């Protein structure tokens, strides 16, 4: 997976991401122009969760801390596959990874204690802040991934 990420981290990620976002939003029922009240609500929840649980490490500007905590700006993880992203929040993430050309080998704690709404909110917030513009994530999507993760593993990656 790391090789794959390294391959696509050269700027081409943006355009393929746009394509993906577009194809996804045509499937979605909501109008992408005006933020719906539901989206506004999600962004608010998301900001609160981010401030309380993510900001310490990823920092207020989402830039992280060089060498310790990766950025959330335009990363393959944030903009990419929703299931993978949701899994990072539920299970945490550890081991060597490369994010936008920087190496990390640290541990992101699991956040399975957050509700489906909170996870959907914070990921939607992250995907629409820090210069990102990717589709929102719904509580239903989080629930689906959570059920799969629970079925896959007895414990978490700790």
């Amino acid at each position: 997976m790391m090789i794959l990420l390294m391959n696509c981290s050269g700027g081409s990620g943006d355009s393929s991401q746009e394509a993906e976002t577009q194809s996804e939003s045509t499937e979605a029922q909501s109008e992408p122009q005006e933020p719906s009240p539901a989206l506004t609500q999600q962004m608010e929840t998301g900001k609160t969760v981010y401030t309380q649980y993510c900001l310490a490490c990823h920092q207020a500007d989402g830039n992280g801390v060089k060498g310790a905590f990766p950025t959330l700006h335009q990363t393959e993880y944030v903009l990419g596959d929703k299931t993978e992203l949701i899994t990072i929040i539920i299970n945490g993430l550890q081991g060597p990874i490369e994010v936008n050309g920087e190496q990390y080998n640290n541990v992101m704690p699991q956040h399975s204690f957050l509700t489906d709404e909170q996870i959907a909110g914070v990921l939607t917030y992250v995907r629409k802040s820090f210069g990102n513009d990717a589709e929102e994530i719904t509580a239903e999507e989080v629930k689906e991934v959570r059920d799969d993760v629970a079925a896959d593993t007895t414990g978490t990656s700790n």
Partner: protein
Amino acid sequence: MRKTQLWLHPRLAGWYFFLLVFAFTLLSCGDSSSVSETEETEGNLTAAPDNGSITLPDGFAATIVADDLGGARHIVVNDNGDIYIKMRNTKNGGGVVALRDTTGDGQADIKEYFTEYGGTGIGLYKGYLYFSSDTIVYRVQLNEGELVPTGEPEIIVKDFLVQGPHESKPITFDNSGHMYVTVGAPSNACQEKDRTPGLAGQDPCPELERQAGIWRFDAEKPNQTQVEDGYRYSTGIRNAVAIEWNDQVNELYALQHGRDQLSTLWPKYFNDSLSAELPAEEFLRVTDGSDFGWPYCYYDQNKEAKILAPEYGGNGEEVGRCENVDTPIMSFPAHWAPNGLVFYKGNLFPEKYQNGAFIAFHGSWNRAPLEQKGYLVAFVPFQNGQPSGDYERFADQFAGSGEAINQPNDAEFRPMGVAVGPDGSLYITDDQKGRVWRVFYENSQVAQR
């Protein structure tokens, strides 16, 4: 560009030229420990504009030894002035960078990267260069005149556990054949699921068995393992990146990074501003068998006591089982992240610095959402192995401009390692960009200009 006045003085120029030639002769003979050479090197040192973007006390100046090295971690300076710095990640194929200044102006004109692994620890012992990856301590012989060692590195200790956070393996040596290695705790406070709000800590904490302490080894025996050959010299230390043997009193000293995120994990007891000020970073005198209480306890500098951690039933007030754990000799503001320590034994700095401690603080990340702090090198005067006064901000403004730093990435530099050179200069590394400063004292003649 500011230069020492002696260098510019026309009457003395010829004399200096002579000294320069003399210095070259000495360098090529491989003997550079004589007093006279020390003096000329001093005279030729050129202060960088703004001392390379840091502030220093009156009478001191700094030159930039090297820049943009990459993640420069711990540093040692050999008797001949050669500098070795461990790199956080390999750069140009090397995990150690060697620097040599052939002209005596303080700036390295030879720079060579070598060895395979990134890491933090580095040391000099009996003619060998020691350095650590995050799981292994190696050494390689330094032959006379050789900047880059040509021998094969041998393994001194292997098989430290692989871990993500607090993975550095800083090293230091005593005077009776031992090497000490910090093994950090892999977690914040030994919760089974690390950093989970409201979750109790594991009791007893299984991490203490092989981590969260300082281990002692034979300094020279190859292929030791932590389990077979290591002796747990001290425990209950969450992570001590700064460790140093103090030759004056023959004791080990270290600085602990206190635990994080009191407010995120325990909002019942701590708000963001309390969490930004607690717990203290601790300066430890580490004796054989000492226990500093992590994860059960943390140090509250206002209460001047070890307090029971909330993961173990504490509420920010209760002391409980922490009553008898070992306490620090001094405390520093929370989250400053002490990463480098050296005791000053040089001849260059004024008397008050003798035997005192220079401590490099990497600067905080865990004060957010409040302003970040602590990007500086502090000085602590010492007498008989104890601090004899408060700390002072010796080298400061590494973060830049003097404005508030809200996130560590905004800091221009982050102090990391400190070392004292043969002439008594203080060297400081930065791992944000990889700048190295050499701080010297402009003697009284120079000050008269």
